[in-house]
């Protein structure tokens, strides 16, 4: 016999999840099947999918490479102003993504280091490099936070024991710490990739939102909405939902597997 408390909580959960499902699902009802197929195989959307996946994979890889030492440092080592460093790293998660976009544009553009970069022949904004930079900055805080929790879960005594058995810090990190955090690392990778794919405002600003040049799926959805091409916009939206669903489902599956405490 379930208690009233339990029933009310289950009821709230089911009701809100159902609303979520209907809201997301309603998008699938808008385009005609023909319109969806046409949009899906249009040159513009194929370009957007390929650009999104390429830039996201590169950005997510960079995120993983950078977040491993950062998360490990925050989890294991003490250094001056550590608390401040943690706040700065977490900050982009708290403010709107558009702020990151503007900040990056200011920094990389002619008001910042843009002129010097131009002098060196390096162009970092309004191209796919700009997209990767924007995705990197948006996804990194989430990845650091997640991997930080993973490392915190690993009892440092595993590392102590490894070192007492003659293994150096590097050897211990490679043979013990990383293998023990593989589930967390995988989940971090999936979340980072998902954030990179879904990033919109910062990519629009730094990439410039140029059709067939810097329009990722999210930007393409926005551009098509503003020009009234609903089929294209909704198809891009559906693709984003499907990609997100797959990433979350993969993560759920692996996150459930034995976590090491």
């Amino acid at each position, binding site marked *: 016999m379930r208690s009233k408390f339990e029933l009310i909580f289950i009821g709230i959960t089911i009701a809100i999840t159902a609303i979520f499902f209907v809201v997301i699902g309603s998008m699938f009802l808008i385009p005609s099947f023909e319109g969806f197929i046409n949009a899906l195989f249009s040159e513009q959307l194929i370009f957007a999918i390929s650009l999104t996946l390429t830039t996201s994979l590169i950005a997510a890889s960079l995120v993983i490479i950078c977040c491993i030492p950062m998360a490990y440092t925050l989890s294991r080592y003490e250094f001056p102003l550590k608390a401040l460093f943690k706040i700065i790293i977490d900050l982009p998660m708290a403010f709107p993504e558009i702020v990151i976009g503007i900040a990056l544009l200011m920094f990389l553009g002619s008001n910042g280091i843009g002129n010097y970069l131009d002098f060196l022949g390096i162009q970092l904004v309004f191209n796919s490099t700009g997209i990767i930079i924007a995705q990197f900055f948006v996804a990194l805080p989430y990845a650091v936070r997640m991997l930080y929790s993973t490392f915190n879960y690993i009892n440092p005594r595993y590392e*102590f*024991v490894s070192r*007492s*058995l*003659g293994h150096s810090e590097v050897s211990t990190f490679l043979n013990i710490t990383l293998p023990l955090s593989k589930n967390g690392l995988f989940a971090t990778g999936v979340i980072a990739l998902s954030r990179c794919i879904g990033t919109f405002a910062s990519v629009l600003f730094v990439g410039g939102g140029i059709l067939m040049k810097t329009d990722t799926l999210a930007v393409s959805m926005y551009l098509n909405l503003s020009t009234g091409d609903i089929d294209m916009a909704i198809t891009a939206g559906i693709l984003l939902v499907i990609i997100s669903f797959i990433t979350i489902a993969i993560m759920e599956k692996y996150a459930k597997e034995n976590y*090491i405490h």
Partner: protein
Amino acid sequence: MIILKIIKTLRVVSGFMYLEIENLSVQLGEFHLKDINLTIKEGEYLILIGPTGSGKSVLLETIIGFYAPDKGNIKLKGRNLNDIPPEERGIGIVYQDNTLFPNMNVYDNIAYGAKKKFSSEQIEKKIAEIAETMRIKHILHRNVTTLSGGEAQRTALARALIVEPKIILMDEPFSALDISTQAKLTSLIKEIGMKYKTTFLHVTHNFNDIWSLANRVGVMKDGKIHQLDTSINVFSRPENNFVADFVGVQNIFEGKIIEISLETAKIELNNKVIITSSDISYLSKISNENEDTEDFKDINKNTNRKDVNKSKVLIAIRPENIIFSNAKFESSAKNQLKGKISEILESGPTSLVNVDVDGCIFKGLLTKSSAEILEVKKGKEIYISFKSLNVSVIDKYGSFNSDIKKE
């Protein structure tokens, strides 16, 4: 000075002082170690006890090199370890919680450290040998997450032993195990100690470990070692009231020295006289320190006996050393006192009987059958006896003004 240095060097060279810790201080958040001095001989089994948070684990992890000392030195076989990384110290560690690497099976866990030291043929041979000793031959290919507590700790010990460490540190290795597994592991560790001549530094909360394993015991509190001595001395002659209280010495009384002879001393306790024959030299010393005071009278110079200035002193008698009887009897026990039973606390097969002797509550242990024979009950008059040798003088550092346990 030179002679002392030569003796010290000879001791180190001869292996007499195996591990030496000199004035070690470590500050680690709320934990701190203060001026720890400790020496362990080769092949010795030293046990550290103390309340939670006394710094025992921090001490172990500083010795192994996970924390850097703020002050002091750690020397192993005369070599200063302060700047040596943990992997080069040759010190093994076994923790209370299961720290077997979950990403490896039992065999790979044991082979993990050995790979850095031996060839693969040697490893195979060594694992076969150690698995036999540790009785884990049958589980070598098991996943470590499926092991029982005892199997896991035997594997952890095998993993630490196989790399032939100079010393093994153990941080409450049995505390997560059931009593029968603890007993089996204790005898296994004894066997290992004899077979491999291993030196152990073992932190525990279980006093049984001390009686079964330790050559010496260190008692820690607030980052300091309060007493470092043989097990018998720590339990029968605690050096201060903290140690006495911690190791469970229950009868602690404050008395006054009234007479000291060559072999015994008389201590006045609420108008009763208690005779002790332990720590006479210490009692003489504290009395002599007060010779200058006005009320000191040396009335019997020719008999080696002197009345002293009634220096205050703490004495302790362990409950198991108190004998009960319904009447006075002839005995070698110099102390026989009459009192009234004030309380009987039953605990398993024994009873803790409190006897009120002129306001001093003496606690003694009686088995159920002895209690029945003596017909003990609350309010009954009874005699208690104890040998003068079993009256320990504690608080040798003269700190008995603070939190004296008054009964």
